[in-house]
Every structure is written in C-alpha cells, then in structure tokens.
C-alpha cells in the first residue's frame, strides 16, 4: 500500500470522517476484487465519471477557496491511492492467474519426446572413418582404387611369384575371359587386397607419398562366421627418401593407441609378405585382459590387427622408383576384424545382413 498517500489522507480527513471512511472502503473494494473483470468494475465504481471518488470533486466550484483547496487535495490523494492500489492488485491477480494456468498445463516429463528420424552409420563405415581420420591427422591423403583389377597390380607388381597359392582359382575370384591364361598379368580379377592402390599411386606420382586407401576386397571364401567373400581393408603406405622401419613402428603405434586406447601396448612380430621386407604382423595388447590371457585373445594376451613391412625393392623397381634412393613402408588391416575386436562382434555375417536391429546400434 502506498503509505505516503494513506498518511496524507489520514491527516487531511481529520475534519471529514466520511472521506476517511471512503478511503478505507475503496481499499477494501480493490482488495476484494478476485478477477481482472471484478477489478475493472471496482475501478469504474471508484474512478469512473460517476464513481465515488469522482463525486468528491463534484460541486467543488461552489465552495469557498479554503475549503475548495482542502477538498481538492483530499480528492487527488484518494485518486492517487486508488490508482496505485488498482495497479498493484492487477499485477497480483495476473501472477496468480499465470501460476494457476501453469499448474493446469503441467507436462508429464517422462513421456517420450518427438524425434526427427535418425539414421545410423554402418559399423564398417564408422571404423573406416575412424581409421582414415587418424591417418589424415598424421598427414596422409586418401586415394581409392578399382575393385576389379588387373593381375599386374594385384599380384605381379607386388612381387607375387607365378604359382603362388593366392593366385589360384581356389583363392581368387577371376573375371571370365574367353581365352584365360593362368598367372597372366593381363588377367582380370577381383582385388584380393587393397595393396594394388600402392602400385597405382606410385606409378602416377612421385615421392614423398603418404597415402591411406580404404575399400572392398574379395576372396573366394565360403560365407561363415569368420569368412566372407567380400570384406574391407585399409591400406596405407609412405614413401620418401628417408623412411625407416622405425617410422613404420612409430606410426602404427600411434595409430593403434589412438584407435584402441592410449593404454594399449603394441608389438611387431616378424612375418612374411611377398611385397614387403622386412615384414611384420602387428599385435595390440588384449582389451579384455590387457595381456593376462582370456578367451578373446585365446590366452595369448595379444590381438593381431594388421600386417606391415618395408616396401620391397622389387615393388619399387616395378614402378620405376630407384630403390637406392627411396625407402617406404606399407601396412594393411581388415576392417571387419578391427570392428569385431573393438565392438565384440563375433560373426562376420552380421555386417552384410543389414538387420535393422544391428544397424540401429551404431
């Protein structure tokens, strides 16, 4: 309540008790209005042209100046008081009304939200993206190559001997030609690995080269839990004047720890591939047992994730690089295998069945 107005009124109306009563009645009426409509009625009743406060001013002109001034003062004070009380009451009513409305409109926050449809990446695509991103951050570019490939790029230029078992019809899918010659560099086949991209890039570009090449590869494998005639590989290689095997180790260690976790240990086991020498298989410490031995790592404590090595000088000779001047490393890993290890998928077939219940998980 406006204390000043009320004090003023009480002083002024000592001589006029009926006006003091009017002030009190006005305040009570305003306080009694329970809705904005009732409050508006009260306003009209008090301050309207025919209102009780307006009546105080009526016939003021006929009074002597002294009385006129006093009564005018009282009237103004009454009006000021009524106006300010009306405004305050209106605000309080509005607050109450809002509060009540919000209570009425209460939401069950546990009901499901309305979602825009959300698609999912295929797990293999996600792994390829993750691997590619790591190598891009290490300064590699991404190059794709043909999936239907010449024997030359898939075998010959990669130093694979003529009668190597991998070249047989039992292992490799060949394209039908009317006059097929076995082990012919002109034979057309479905690439058995992504390594032909190495040869294609080196054939058309000069070092330094830092390349990563993810893609599909094919083998004549019957479909079961651990075999698929179509699978994905990520190939990578670096060629420069001073690439060492230490660089290969350092690079793949960074890769493996970025992909599988910084706490992973990495080791390199000597192995044999026709197109690299020295060659190695890369193991990371088991994610489940961290080296102690469990069913995932078959008790070994290590999980094989890829093959790698220093590019064989014979491969350089095929593409016209001087093996005395350039050195390089190459590596390749199976995307399905990485996905199976990292996400605990135990059957390769799920990748190609595309069951929505699988796809939605990633």
């Amino acid at each position, binding site marked *: 309540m406006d204390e000043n107005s009320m004090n003023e009124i009480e002083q002024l109306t000592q001589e006029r008790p009926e006006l003091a009563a009017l002030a009190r009645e006005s305040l009570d009426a305003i306080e009694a209005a329970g809705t904005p409509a009732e409050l508006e009625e009260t306003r009209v009743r008090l301050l309207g042209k025919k209102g009780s406060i307006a009546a105080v001013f009526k016939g003021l002109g006929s009074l002597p100046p002294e009385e006129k001034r006093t009564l005018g003062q009282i009237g103004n004070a009454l009006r000021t008081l009524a106006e300010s009380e009306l405004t305050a009451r209106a605000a309080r009513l509005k607050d109450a009304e809002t509060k009540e409305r919000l209570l009425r409109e209460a939401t069950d926050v546990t*009901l*499901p939200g309305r*979602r825009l*449809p*959300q*698609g*999912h990446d*295929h797990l293999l695509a996600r792994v390829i993206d993750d691997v590619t991103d790591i190598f*891009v951050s*290490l*300064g*590699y*570019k*991404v190059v794709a190559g*043909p*999936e*239907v*490939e010449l024997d030359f790029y898939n075998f010959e230029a990669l130093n694979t001997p003529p*009668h190597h078992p991998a070249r*047989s*019809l039992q292992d490799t*899918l*060949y*394209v*039908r*030609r009317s006059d097929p010659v076995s082990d012919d560099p002109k034979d*057309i086949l*479905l690439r058995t690995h992504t390594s032909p991209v190495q040869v294609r890039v080196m054939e058309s570009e000069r070092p330094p080269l*830092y390349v990563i090449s993810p893609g599909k590869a*094919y083998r*004549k494998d*019957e*479909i079961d839990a651990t075999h698929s*005639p179509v699978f994905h590989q990520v190939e990578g290689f670096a060629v*420069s004047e*001073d*690439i*060492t*095997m*230490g*660089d290969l*180790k*350092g690079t793949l260690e*960074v890769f493996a720890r970025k992909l599988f976790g910084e706490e992973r240990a990495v*080791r390199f*086991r*000597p*192995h*044999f591939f026709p197109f690299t*020498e*020295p*060659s190695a*298989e890369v193991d990371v410490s088991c994610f489940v047992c961290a080296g102690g031995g469990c069913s995932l790592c078959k008790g070994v404590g290590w999980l094989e994730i890829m093959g790698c090595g*220093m590019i064989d*000088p014979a491969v350089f000779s095929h593409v016209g690089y001087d093996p005395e001047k350039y050195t390089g490393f190459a590596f390749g890993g199976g995307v399905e295998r990485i996905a199976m290890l990292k996400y605990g998928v135990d059957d390769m077939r799920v*990748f190609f069945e*595309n*069951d*929505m*219940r699988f796809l939605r998980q990633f």
Partner: protein
Amino acid sequence: MRISIEWLKEYIDIEMTAEELADALSMSGTAVDRVHTLGGGISGVVVADVREVKPHPNADTLSIVVVDDGETVREIVCGAPNVRAGMKYPFAREGARLPAVSSKPLKKAKIRGVESAGMLLSAAELGISEDHTGILELAGDAEVGADVHQALPLEDIVLELEITPNRPDCMSVVGVAREVSALTGAPLRLPSVELDESGPPVDTLARVILEDPQGCPRYTARAVMGVKTGPSPAWMQRRLTAAGLRPISNVVDVTNYVLLELGQPLHAFDLDLLAERTIIVRRAARGEPMRTLDGVDRQLDEATLVITDPSGPVAVAGIIGGEDSEVTESSANILIESAHFDPTSILLTSKRLGIRTEASARFERGVDPGGTAFAAARAARLMNELAGGQVASGEIDAYPEEIKPRTLELRPSRANKVLGTDLGAGEMAGILQSLGARVEAGEALTVTVPTFRPDLEREIDLVEEVARINGFDRIPETVPQGGGLAAGLTPQQRLEKKMLAGLTAQGLSQAVTYSFMNPADLDLLGLADDDKRRRVVTLLNPLAETGEGMRTTLLPGMLRVAGGNINRGSKDLALFEAGRAFISQGEEVLPVEIDTVALLLAGDLHPQHWSGRQTACDFFDLKGIVENLADVLGITVLEFGRASEEFLVPMSAAVLSAGNEYAGYIGQLHPRVASAFDLEGDIYCGELLAAPLLAAANESVYSPVGRFPNVKVDVAAVVDEAADAIEVERVIRRSGGDTLKSVRLFDVYRGPQVAQGKKSLAYALEFGSASGTLTDEQAHRRLDAVIASLQKELGASIRGREREGEAR
C-alpha cells in the same frame, strides 16, 4: 609344424621355459600358434602283451582280446582295428588316470554284454597326439608290466609352429634348433651320421640314371641290406606321434623321422622290387599309368616328374610313392632315396594331382640341395641301428651340376638406413654367422649364404635377418613428417562425406551388401536387352551362393536387404547403400566402376508417436530427401523429369539430372518387381550417381540479408492438369526479378472451385531487398509482372491474390 621340445633339446641346450621359448620364436618370425602339453598326469598304465584276439560275440567291429599285463592275464573288449596278437600296447588298468580321456579314474565297463576291466590305449588317449585311429604299438623290447613311462617318455610339450612360405628350413627340428641357437647363442649339435659301412659297394647293388637334371638336380641314394622290419622303438614312435605322424614300421618310420629331423624328405624302396635294381628319373609319358600309395590308379602326363625303374614308374617324384615298390614286412634290402627336386615342378604336379604330403610341402618350398647326402647317411645309420643288416659302402650321388652357395653383399649403412637403427658391422656379421652364413668383413660384408636358405637372395633379405634376430622391439620408434600440403581430404572427398552424412541426418541408415549379382536379377527388374546395366562383368569361378556377376545396379541388393528386414519384422525402413556398380567395357579391359548411392523407403518414415498419428512414406518423402541432399551439397541445377525405368511405377518415377547430366532415378517400385523379390507393400527406391552430383555441388555463397522483413504474398495460378509444377515455378522465378527471394508451393487444389481438367497451384512468394526497404507497392508491382507472365506464358488464370502480414 609340430615340434617336440624333448626332441628339440637333442640338438640344443634350452634354458628357457616352454613359454619363453614360444615367445622368443614368435618374436623372431616363427609364430607359435598353440602350445600342447602331452602326457601329463598319467598313472596306472603299463606295457601289456596281447596273447590272443577273438571276435566279440555281439559286435562285428569289436574284438575280445587276451591281455597279459605282467600281473594277470585277462580278457578285455577292444575296438581298435589294428590290435594283433603278439604285439605290445599301453594298457590302462582299472583305476588308471588318463587326463586326456576323463578326470575320473578308469572303471570296469560292460561293453555289448561282455565285461571288460581296463583298456588298450591310442596315442590320443595317452594325450601325446590327436591320433585315435588305432591303439599305439609299442616296441618289441618293451618290458611287459613296466610302467608306460619307462617304455616311452610321455611328458612333453609340443609347439605348433606356423612356418612362413619363405622358410622351408624351419620345417624340421634341426632347422628350428638353428633358429633357437641364433636367438640364444647356445651351440647347435647336429645328429650323428657315423656309419659302419660293412656291406658291399653301393654301386654294385643299384644304379641311378638322371634323365631330367632340371627337374631333379641331385639324387643321392644309399642301400641297407638284410634289414629286419618290425615296429620302431617307443622313443621314435612317440616323437613321430607327437609330430602328428603315425608310426608304421622301423624302415618307414626312419624315413619319416629324418624328414622331420632334417627337413629332407626321403623315400625307401624295396630294392628287390626295383626292376634291374635301377632308378631312372624322368618325365612321365602322356597317359602313363601308375597306382600310387593311396591306392588310386592315375594317368600321368609329360609335366610329371617320376621315379621309375625300367618297367615303369615307382614314385611320383617328391610327392608320393607307388604301391609296386613299397616297403613291406618282408622287405630285406632297402634303397634310400634322398633327392633334390625343382620346387615349381613339385608345386605344379602336387596341385594337378591334388595330393599334398609332408614331402611335397617341403619340396615345393625348396629343400636344401646341399643336404641330401647327410640325410641319406643319417637314415642309413638309423635304419642299421633299428633294423639291423649292413649298410652298403659308399653312396650314389647323381649331381651333374653343383648348386653353389650364394654370395651376397650387405652394406651396414644400408641396413641401418632401412631399419632406422645404429648397428655396427660386427653385430650384423655375428647375427648372420649364427644363422649359418660365412661372413667376410670389408666396406660391405661379403656373406656366403648356406644352401638351406633359398630365401636369402638379395641384400634386403640379409637386412631382414639382422632385424629379425636383433629383435624388432629394439628398433627405435619415430614418426615421419607426413605429406604436408598433399595431406587431408580433397574437396570432392569432403563433399562425399557430407553427402552420406546428409542421408543419415535425414533418418536413413547405411547398409553394406556384397558387390555380386545374379544376372537373372536383371530379368526380374525387367530391364531392356540393350540397357547399359545388362553389360555384366561375369566371374570365371563364382561362389555358388552369391551370384556369378558383379552388380550393375545396387537395387537388387537393397531389395533383398528390405525383404530380409520385413521378414524379420522390421517393416519401417529408411536405408541407403554407398557402393560401386560395375559396367563391363569388354572382356579384355577393366570395367567402369560407378560410385552409386542406393536409397530405399518402406513403411513409415516417422515412427508412431503418442501425440499424433503415423503416416506411410510416399514418393515425396524420397524426393524431399534428395532435395535436401542437393541443398546440403549446394546443388542449384538438380532437375526431376519423368523416368521410364521398367521396374518403377510409370507415373511415379523421376529421372534426376544435375547440370544436364544423368544423376540417377527415384520412384515407386513396380508391384510386379516387388512381388518378384517377395516384397509386400509400397517400396520407394532410387539410385544416385555420386560423380554428377558432386560435380554440380557449389560452395555456399554469402548474400547480404536485408534489415527489414521480406514482403510475403500468396498467388494461386489455375493451370491445365497436365502442366508440370516446375514449369509454373520457372515462370514465377523468371518474371519475379532480383527481389524475389523465395518461391514455395504450399497447396495443390482440384475441385469445385476450379474448372474440370484444371488444377490450382498456390505459391507463397517472398520479396526482399538487401539494400533498403522494399515497399509494399514495389513488391506488388513485381507480383503484377509475375501474374502477367503466368497468364501470358501458361494461359493461367489467377485465383487468389492475398497479402499476408509483413512481420509474420
């Protein structure tokens, strides 16, 4: 290759535990796949003599055997096919402990009505090999009743090694011992070949004629006369079974034993069965017949190298023997063949005949040409020791052109450059010497490589040996600098990623399918004979289950994914696949590989929500997805025309072009095709070609936005039913001028308020200007121009012209 540690220790002292040894071998390139512990925890097994074998009254495959175990003679039931009277076998008494069979002690059993207390054991039941095809025969001198541990050392650890194809030398116990020697520094002890050559000179007993020195560069032979065949001693049987071979008889076992010991395959002939006691090594004649040891009658060809006598083939060289000259129990005079064959010739013949043996597996990788004489002498010594007789003096060694050890150079600086190491020349020389090479120091090391290492042909091969034995773990790790400016994704690759992300963002999930296709699928689609997608790349040797061609379209694969999901109860599908289609360009050249994105919608795009109802997807959902994609890529020139794909519903199919290039199709799958693929319900599908879409993509361009709200007006044009909406929109855009900022069709109306054969298309237009205020009046002048063009160019009548609030 299975290597017994007990056997290995004959040639080298090993201080490490089996686990440490396995680890050391793995880390030097001889991967240890498994470690088998043999024969531990066995008790209650003794040497028993079989007195008599009688048929079982109730079962043909079983026998009743009278067994003497040194304490009692009893009858037991035995199911082994090889049980014979007079032989000695391991016998498990009642209560025996056999961990390979059961964790509980052996109990008396009733087998087909006959009580049986105890059992004769196979090598598998003893846990010393996986061979359970018969019971294990023990040597004749084994003492009946003695604990089996005295007759043969049962407890052993066997390493299962994965030998890489470049290391034939490691396919032997001595070869693995040499690796261990290089790793640990312990000296290698070669087995003894000291002989008592008391027999007549070998060249008076046999003759070898080498007609094909290419196929057989060396043929060494020795003879042992007057042997007595019988079972080999238990220690040899145990080593053979531990390695996975089955003991046969002392003479044959010796050849297998030396094969495992030295890696040199041997063959034993019954000298008396060789016509004129003469061996001729030659190519077979076309169609020459021969019955091999596996009992198969074969027709040979000119590419096959054969060992013959003057009457015909007695063995397929290096692969398998013939039945005619096979050593039997009655053989007395033995000719031991220890030869070197050309690896390629063996590989091709073994492939052609479909036979792979322990011998061929070694010959095809390259056996040591310098080791034949040593192996022949070793075999003669062992045969003499185990089967008696007299070793003929001297050897036959047909070796017309000696294969000399190779000499290579190794520059230490080169090795360090490749490896990133700082090893001294002395360290490198030491490693190579430990592997059997002779090394002379100098500016570069001059390395004479032993003949048992055919894989060491070039300097880089020596670099690898240095790295391997020194340890890959000792190469310091570094990270190279990377490709600099050349690194990272190209703008095209970034767009490609954006495109796929644009699909998942719109609710489509990614599928990955095989790239194969059955060409019959194209008939199911109903493609015309001259359709480009009929140019299928067909496979010579396809897998039966995946179809014989490479896909020319991703659609059949997508339809099968949809079908599989619908059958499994997932009926609401929004899928895409990004993959390649392959179009043949003729059989002598590589096909064109087309990066394609297949799309498929079925059922409801939005899952049913409690607040409203679900709606089945339709053509415009699919089209909207493509339009959004165009927006994401900044394509301004994507157009949809009427498509005439045979597999789509004729009036609900659109062909896409981007910058006037064909960019794919979308539409509703024809019900005929849907049912051919066993699909029910409406399917919306499409294929987008990545190349034209990415080529039409544009970088986003900034254009200033006016400070005042745009003026929004609606206009409805009544046009012929046959008119395409895109034509109306083109007229509006053209006549709207620069200030026309957006055109949006918001209603299509057919009904009583427009004439028959007409439709009303209502558009919301927004006019605006970046430079200043666009007045209502100016906007309406533009609208007047638009209306005039619609009337004039399309004969449209204007149904409504409304103005909306300016500050909506």
